[in-house]
């Protein structure tokens, strides 16, 4: 275990390399470009077997689908408009049950054009059948990569490892990157259940008539729900082997067990939320944080348990569903819908397109929550 001072993107790329992917297919896009660049230089140095410099993100995802169908361990990297361009292939990857891993440097969607961070790119793909893990810092993102492969290959579902553009992709932090030897002990070789093989020909991505299409979708939905357990199990295995964990693998409770007021959020902004909580705790205020790690499948039971008995809950998210309640807020509402004591649950949408969210902003949010009124607003 050696910590080195490294940019988040480079640490994640190294973790990907140490998972020994057979095929990387990437089209660089800000702010995840450094991951794609680093993978390309690993390929140039002979450390990755194949790197396809595609002409678009739709091609990247399509190349990953083909390579994965042929039994390869695959990776792609994208952000924002790149993920939007992939859209139809994103659904195909999940529908074909291909364990592709996608590294997402989260960024806003146009228009107006903006290259900075929010979660709208991957949140928009939340219904696609991909498992989504969100990370608070470079270490969590790096640790999520070997876990992502192990989860994907165990449940035959693709996984997105999402980390905030610039805030994590470009931040230089001390990070312990698991070595090739360590990853080999944790991650078994990829053995696909079925693959394209000239000796035993099959067609994949077949046509399904109205009599069968819904059955496939329902099966995928049930397997997604069931994957919550596998995500937790693999996180716990990793924590045992490497000594690093992210809460219980589904969410992290930060000083929230005895708290009356709890903030729910995702990703890098949780760092500032924790700092604000520490300051308020020193003043004796019972505040805490529930940081979601797994957003798809959504861990309803774990969230309900973490929020049980809380009087006031606030959800802060860098995402929206225009003309409706914000996506994470909606999930939290659903998670606590059956609770006996009804908490006051407020929604804050903010930090969009790189709008700074400071410790001071977090203190303001807790100030608003303390009033105990339900708020649904953009901050």
């Amino acid at each position, binding site marked *: 275990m050696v910590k080195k001072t490294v940019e988040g993107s480079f640490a994640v790329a190294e973790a990907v390399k140490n998972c020994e992917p057979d095929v990387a297919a990437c089209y660089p896009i800000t702010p995840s470009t450094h991951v794609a660049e680093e993978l390309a230089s690993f390929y140039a140095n002979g450390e990755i077997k194949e790197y396809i410099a595609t002409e678009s993100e739709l091609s990247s995802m399509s190349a990953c689908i083909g390579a994965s169908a042929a039994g390869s361990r695959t990776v792609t990297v994208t952000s924002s408009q790149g993920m939007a361009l992939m859209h139809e292939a994103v659904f195909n990857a999940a529908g*074909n049950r291909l364990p592709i891993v996608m590294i997402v440097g989260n960024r806003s969607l146009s228009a107006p054009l903006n290259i900075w961070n929010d979660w709208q790119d991957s949140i928009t793909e939340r219904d696609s059948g991909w498992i989504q893990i969100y990370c608070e810092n470079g270490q969590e993102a790096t640790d999520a990569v070997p876990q992502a492969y192990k989860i994907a290959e165990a449940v035959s579902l693709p996984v997105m490892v999402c980390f905030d553009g610039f805030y994590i992709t470009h931040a230089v932090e001390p990070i312990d990157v698991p070595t090739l030897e360590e990853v080999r002990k944790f991650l078994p070789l990829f053995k696909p259940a079925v693959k394209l093989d000239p000796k035993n020909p099959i067609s994949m991505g077949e046509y399904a008539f109205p009599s069968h299409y819904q059955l*496939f979708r329902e099966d995928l939905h049930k397997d997604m729900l069931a994957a919550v357990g596998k995500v937790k199990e693999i996180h716990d295995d990793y924590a045992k082997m490497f000594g690093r964990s992210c809460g219980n693998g589904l969410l992290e409770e930060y000083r929230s067990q005895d708290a009356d007021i709890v903030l729910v959020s995702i990703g890098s902004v949780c760092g500032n939320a924790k700092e604000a909580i520490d300051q308020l705790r020193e003043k004796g205020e019972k505040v805490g944080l529930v940081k979601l790690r797994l957003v798809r499948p959504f861990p309803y039971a774990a969230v309900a348990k973490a929020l049980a008995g809380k009087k006031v809950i606030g959800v802060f998210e860098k995402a929206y569903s225009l003309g409706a309640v914000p996506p994470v807020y909606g999930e939290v509402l659903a998670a606590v819908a059956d609770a006996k004591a009804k908490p006051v649950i407020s929604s804050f949408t903010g930090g969009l397109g790189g709008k700074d969210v400071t410790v001071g902003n977090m203190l303001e949010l807790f100030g608003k929550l303390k009033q105990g009124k339900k708020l649904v607003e953009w901050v």
Partner: protein
Amino acid sequence: MMLPIAKPGTSKENKTGSWRSFRPETDKSKCIKCGMCELFCPEPCITGVEQSKKPEEKTFPKTDYDYCKGCGVCANVCPVKCIKMVPEEK
């Protein structure tokens, strides 16, 4: 886990005749065994008119209703209009 995969030869198993709402029926008293319907059938599920044979040795066309989708191309190209599209009764 349900996988949307298929082994070779499934186009034989998928009997697309179930898609049909109109059924082509050939009036053999009018048919001249020219084979136009067989040539134009896009599936192709009309067989039996062998062009190499002399006119008197030719046989009537046969429609394979397991795969005929009822597109009506045969009825349209028939020079003597001996193929009628009859609604499928269910």
